[in-house]
């Protein structure tokens, strides 16, 4: 399976519709943990994935911060958005399907920490 999409620097003549993400902290393949935090407000990080460890599947680009946009601000500065791949059995201990099954979603950089860190764990 091709893990990365077209974001991995393939030099093409067509302009990408994706926003570049200069200065991103994580690379494709990096192990990351979603922060286990429960701040109030509008968040795009599903509760069920907080505290879970996955790997960066692709870098989507930089997007206005939805946590600001939701309250009428301009969403600046933009935040880097990643697609993170998780193994279902690690997300749901009682998952009934085979160990190969995956779930992927988009997580903003400020919700991620290196998987080696224990910050955010209780």
């Amino acid at each position, binding site marked *: *399976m*091709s893990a990365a*999409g*077209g974001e991995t620097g*393939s030099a*093409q003549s*067509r*302009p*990408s*519709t*994706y926003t570049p993400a200069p200065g991103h902290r994580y690379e494709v393949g990096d192990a990351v943990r979603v922060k286990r935090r*429960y701040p109030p407000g509008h968040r*795009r*990080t*599903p*509760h*069920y994935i907080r505290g879970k460890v996955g790997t960066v599947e692709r870098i*989507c*680009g930089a*997007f206005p911060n*939805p946590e600001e946009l939701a309250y009428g601000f301009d969403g600046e500065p933009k935040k880097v*958005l990643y*697609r993170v791949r998780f193994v*279902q059995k690690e*997300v*749901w201990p009682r*998952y*009934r*399907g*085979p160990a*190969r*099954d*995956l*779930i*992927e*979603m*988009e*997580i*903003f950089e400020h919700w991620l920490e290196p998987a080696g860190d224990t910050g955010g764990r209780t």
Partner: protein
Amino acid sequence: MTDSRIDYYAVKKHAHDHGDHDHSHDDHAPVAGEDEGPPSEFAIMSRAMQEILEAKGVITAEQVTRRMEQFEEDFPYRGSRVVARAWTDPEFRKRLLDDGKAACTEMGVDLEADRLIAVENTPEVHNMIVCTLCSCYPRALLGMPPTWYKSRSYRSRVVFEPRAVLKEFGTELPDNVTVRVHDSNADMRYVVIPMRPQGTEGWSEDQLADILTRDTLVGVTVPRVRT
């Protein structure tokens, strides 16, 4: 932090833990709108607002219905054309996988603000799309989402028992196929490129588009040659 509108796992966990029976996963209600429970606070407010505006003669029910129909016309189902092209043109397929939005623009399909990620089914991987947080959907490509896509049942179950949901759609996958669920939870929108079935050799793009139903592009079913 126990807002049941966003904490799906809490809702589901409760549903699973409250009984003293050990039920199988086959006895879930089928994926549909009937398990939606009482209307939400916003649904009630919306309904009340419409009734007040109608009573005051500001709007009519017909206008509301007309507006809803307009949404359907604004966002027709165009995904089948795009995927049929991907089936017949390997170079286009590659461009669609590289940058979905640009490839759609090439076919005259303007996705507006949507950033599109196309994911391809293979003999080893089956993809399916959900949005657990709300009901994000590539409207500009697939039209308005079906009711089941927006149902709490679909949104909460696909992420942790995708194979059970697939089975209810008549899609049974062997254990050696990876089920890859995509939670469309932020700025990306998704479309599945299904596998082209046998028996479609030599078909035109129009013929191929015919079997590329909306459900196949969400990944809950796979295209079949009608006999």
